[in-house]
């Protein structure tokens, strides 16, 4: 019984048969079919269940405006829900399934919801499920979500690839119907770089669905000729299967190209490409969308838009029914009747709401004047219609036309407001268009073929692309329309928004309850939401609201269209930025060495850094970290610290510049010396810290924290260009240029002595703590040496050009073999800095000041610097401000908890009694107990006090003792040794 409704003709290839399945049942179609046309050809009228009431639904349109025929395609990981059957190109082996039913499509168990419809009107959920509140999350919402809804996700990772691309053109033509083809041809012949994009897989727009002629031949043939001419031109890019979904600022357009959706597999190619098109001008020639008339039970499978009915007959060679009645309020509906009869399909009646003579001759059809359809019958598909005059007519398909709405969506993407035209009974693009955009053809209200061709040509000429050739000949077909939005005699529910199950009554109720503004109407009834965004529903609903309020439609308003025009998959928006490629990541110069030596890596900003280096027999990370700390403090350890930001600062005013960006003074820093620097934000909060080395008279090297490397550089450029434009100072980021290693521990000097060339004196006198200089290593390789220490040990940082970083790590480890040198990772680094009481990210958290950090006296009052003035606000310098302190548990066996708050002995753990917080904790293998850093009110004056550290998050508390933050070597003897 395959393809019972297939008739002759159309733009399909009847000689080739392809097989697909719908709900597991094999069906046949032809190349050129959509899933919708093939389903209709196979007599499948019922294709889904509605969102809320689980009503049987069929195919309603023949385009991207489809509200009903949403299906799941494919299976497994490539399963895709909510796909419109009307725009799904058929291919051999396509698997499609209907959605939103429990049990089979024919006997949906949830259809009982429909019987409850009197209780489920607009706002029902808001009103009913308010109380008791706790029930909402646990009971109501899951139940509602399970019964309503659309398709299902596969919950598997999408195996397809998506890509992004960028295109530039003089003219982007949106829509390849008569107006778009003319605009593209005119501009292309004039030499413009043209992109012609159309959402369909066959260009030509309505020309493919009509029997109208252009230049004496079928319109679709004319379109083929124009497309062939354009395809042969080097300055034209044709983009079928490409939806222009958004018009953005300054001539930027978003385009989704579906590259392999029409193939069984993507074959390794990107499935979809998200294009960003930069266009000097754009012609919107997106055509028009037909709208329905609302009457009783107008949602049955078999009730379709009239333009779609004739599109199926003319373009796809499919009869949507055996007996097709036509219900119209305009001349265009008659064209459906005439075309169907010409195809040999029976048309029992044309019901015209206008009491006027027939528009054209329709053999065999009764012309019912001044009447309307008020009800329908047929449980899972239309059988009969009832007219307002009481007549009943048998029909298995009803073609409905309520007039056409210009597709002006993209004209609204930058606040443009549509204007109402009474003669069309439709909104047309307003005067305020996105800059560079012009509108032509039906999208602009030029509803006839001849007018569309004329406008397409004219707009291209207005933009300066003139072409001498003649306009093609075509007719101005009759397009009169007398608006009728709904049939008031209907007693049964009359549907406006088929996708969201919104009826005429719902709109009236919204009006009654005061939700009269369009935006309120939308949110109260859910009208115009979901995948179709109300393309067929919005204007009729607006008209009914206008009727209720006694205002005109333009007075009532219009919803503003936003991007995207049709749904854009998240996969396409993500492109290749997913999984490991979600954002770039960076490897340290010694990454390969670390990988080969058992490193576990951690993401720090964009970097992967070695966290620790496990050795055989170690039971967990703590074993490794404790060993790394003890061996570093006992002999020597090596750590890749390349990730710290490095900024090269040069110029006659470089010192003065540093003086202004650091809160402490840099004017007195001698050549060959390094100084710790603290930067403030302009509001006086501590921002970043690091060291700056003076390498020469006018040459400094700054380091920043890893986290702020990018933003510190940005701020320094701001200071240089915007605040002090005439300082002679230049900056360049050299973070990637130098590989830098910390060599720390009592044997650090001995180790480096073996690596640094012998002419460089490394003795404590020649190269003291906080010294720096250019040296050579390994027999002549240029390097920089800084005697700085984050660990508190005798320590150096040695920098070599980044490409030698991996080798340098090996050289240092080899030289350290006799000292049992260890590589250490970020965990050991963290433990040692807490043992030494150095602030890091947890302390420089955007809430703390130099005063809090115990560095208040560093803020020089003798000079200006960023943050200087506001750091002196009285509230920020209070005596009872929190101060950085060290903490240790009274019971040494207890582990401290980071984030605990300090509460006095005997006080309740409340905000009022909060005295500060624990910012960093670590187990100190050197002291063999847990230690912490924290901020405590007047902390510097409370050494030895016992407090409670309370962590409500963990439900735990413990006694802690306030101690100096310098747990190790408080006098700094080691680092100066």
């Amino acid at each position, binding site marked *: 019984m395959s393809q019972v409704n297939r008739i002759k003709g159309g733009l399909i290839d009847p000689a080739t048969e392809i097989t697909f399945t719908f709900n597991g049942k094999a069906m046949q179609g032809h190349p050129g079919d959509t899933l919708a046309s093939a389903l209709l050809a196979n007599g499948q009228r019922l294709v889904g269940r509605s969102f809320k009431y689980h009503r049987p639904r069929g195919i309603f349109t023949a385009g991207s405006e489809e509200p009903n025929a949403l299906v799941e395609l494919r299976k497994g990981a490539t399963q895709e829900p909510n796909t419109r059957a009307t725009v799904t190109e058929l291919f051999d082996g396509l698997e499609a399934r209907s959605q939103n039913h429990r049990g089979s499509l024919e006997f949906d168990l949830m259809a009982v919801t429909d019987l409850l419809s009197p209780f489920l009107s607009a706002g029902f959920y808001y009103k009913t499920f308010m109380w008791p509140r706790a029930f909402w999350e646990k009971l109501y919402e899951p139940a509602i979500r399970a019964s309503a809804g659309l398709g299902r996700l596969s919950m598997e990772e999408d195996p397809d690839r998506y890509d992004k691309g960028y295109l530039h053109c003089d003219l982007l033509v949106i829509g390849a119907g008569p107006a778009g083809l003319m605009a593209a041809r005119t501009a292309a012949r004039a030499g413009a770089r043209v992109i012609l994009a159309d959402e369909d897989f066959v260009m030509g727009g309505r020309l493919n669905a009509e029997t109208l002629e252009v230049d004496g031949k079928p319109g679709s043939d004319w379109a083929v000729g124009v497309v062939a001419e354009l395809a042969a031109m080097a300055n034209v890019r044709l983009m079928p299967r490409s939806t222009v979904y958004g018009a953005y600022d*300054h*001539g*930027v357009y978003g385009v989704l190209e579906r590259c392999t959706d029409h193939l069984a597999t993507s074959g390794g190619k990107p499935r979809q490409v998200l294009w960003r098109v930069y266009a000097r001008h754009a012609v919107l020639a997106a055509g028009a969308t037909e709208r329905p008339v609302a009457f009783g039970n107008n949602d049955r499978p078999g009730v379709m838009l009239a333009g779609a009915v004739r599109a199926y007959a003319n373009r796809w060679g499919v009869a949507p029914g055996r007996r097709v009645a036509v219900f119209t309020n305009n001349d265009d509906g008659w064209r459906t009747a005439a075309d169907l009869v010409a195809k040999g399909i029976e048309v029992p009646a044309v019901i015209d709401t206008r009491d006027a003579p027939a528009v054209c001759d329709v053999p065999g059809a009764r012309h019912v004047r001044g009447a309307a359809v008020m009800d329908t019958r047929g449980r899972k598909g239309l059988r009969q219609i009832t007219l307002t005059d009481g007549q009943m007519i048998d029909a298995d398909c009803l073609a409905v036309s309520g007039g056409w709405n210009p597709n002006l969506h993209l004209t609204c993407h930058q606040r443009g407001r549509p204007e109402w035209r009474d003669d069309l009974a439709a909104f047309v693009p307003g005067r305020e268009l996105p800059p560079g955009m012009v509108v032509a053809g039906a999208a602009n209200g030029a509803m006839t073929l001849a007018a569309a061709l004329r406008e397409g040509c004219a707009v291209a000429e207005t933009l300066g692309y003139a072409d001498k050739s003649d306009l093609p000949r075509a007719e101005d077909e009759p397009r009169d329309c007398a608006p009728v939005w709904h049939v008031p005699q209907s007693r049964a529910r009359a549907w406006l928004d088929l996708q969201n199950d919104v009826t005429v009554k719902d709109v009236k109720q919204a009006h009654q309850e005061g939700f009269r503004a369009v935006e309120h109407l939308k949110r109260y009834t859910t009208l115009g939401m979901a995948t179709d965004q109300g393309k067929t529903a919005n204007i009729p609903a607006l008209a009914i609201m206008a009727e209720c309020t006694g205002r005109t439609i333009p007075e009532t308003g219009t919803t503003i269209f936003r991007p995207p025009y049709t749904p854009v998959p998240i996969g396409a928006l993500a492109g290749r930025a997913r999984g490991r490629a979600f954002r770039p990541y960076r490897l340290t110069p010694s990454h390969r060495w670390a990988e080969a030596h058992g490193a576990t890596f951690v993401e720090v900003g964009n970097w992967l850094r070695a966290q620790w280096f496990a050795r055989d027999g170690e039971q967990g990370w703590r074993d490794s970290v404790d060993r790394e700390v003890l061996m570093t403090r006992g002999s020597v350890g090596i750590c890749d610290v390349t990730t710290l930001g490095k900024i090269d600062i040069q110029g006659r005013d470089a010192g003065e510049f540093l003086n202004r960006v650091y809160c402490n003074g840099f004017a007195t820093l001698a050549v060959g010396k390094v100084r710790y620097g603290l930067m403030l934000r302009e509001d006086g909060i501590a921002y970043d810290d690091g060291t700056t080395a003076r390498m020469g008279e006018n040459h400094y090297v700054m380091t920043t924290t890893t986290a702020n490397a990018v933003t510190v550089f940005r701020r320094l450029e701001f200071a240089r*260009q*915007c605040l002090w434009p005439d300082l002679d100072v230049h900056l360049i980021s050299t973070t990637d240029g130098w590989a830098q290693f910390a060599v720390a521990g009592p044997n650090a000097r001995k180790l480096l002595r073996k690596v640094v060339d012998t002419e460089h004196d490394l003795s404590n006198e020649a190269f003291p703590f906080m010294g720096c200089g250019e040296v050579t290593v390994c027999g002549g390789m240029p390097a920089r040496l800084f005697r700085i220490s984050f660990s508190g040990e005798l320590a150096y940082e040695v920098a070599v050009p980044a490409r030698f970083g991996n080798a340098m790590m090996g050289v240092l480890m080899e030289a350290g073999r006799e000292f049992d040198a260890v590589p250490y990772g970020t965990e050991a680094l963290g433990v040692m800095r807490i043992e030494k009481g150095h602030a890091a990210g947890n302390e420089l958290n955007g809430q703390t000041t130099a005063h809090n950090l115990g560095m208040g006296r560093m803020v020089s009052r003798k000079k200006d610097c960023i943050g200087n*003035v506001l750091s002196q606000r009285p509230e920020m310098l209070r005596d009872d401000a929190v101060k950085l302190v060290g903490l240790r548990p009274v019971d040494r066996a207890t582990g401290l908890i980071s984030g605990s708050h300090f509460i006095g002995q005997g006080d309740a753990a409340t905000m009022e009694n909060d005295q500060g917080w624990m910012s960093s904790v670590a187990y100190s293998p050197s002291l063999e107990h847990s230690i912490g850093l924290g901020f405590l009110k007047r902390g510097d004056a409370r050494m030895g006090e016992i407090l409670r550290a309370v962590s409500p998050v963990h439900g735990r508390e413990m006694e802690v003792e306030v101690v100096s933050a310098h747990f190790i070597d408080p006098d700094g003897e080691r680092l100066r040794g």
Partner: protein
Amino acid sequence: MIINHPLLGPRDAAEFVYLGDAALIDRPDWQAAEAAEAFHAYGYLRDNPAGAHQELWYHEQGDRSWLVVTRDTVSHEITQVELARDVARARGRSR
């Protein structure tokens, strides 16, 4: 959006980082009598015009110029793009 860089020509806004009101160039004198009030206004108070707005953009993925872009906050139309250094000098910021 597209920003017409005075040195590099039209560039996509994605190459830039936005900071905000170009009034941030006018950093107060730290030794003025009312310095605290002036810095408070500088740090916290902004106009929020519907219309022409001078604002700072940083060409981070490009030549690292700070630019003063005059943009209509309603239409996003950009009417002028200048090097912030030139603007700063014109506003009297020198050494």
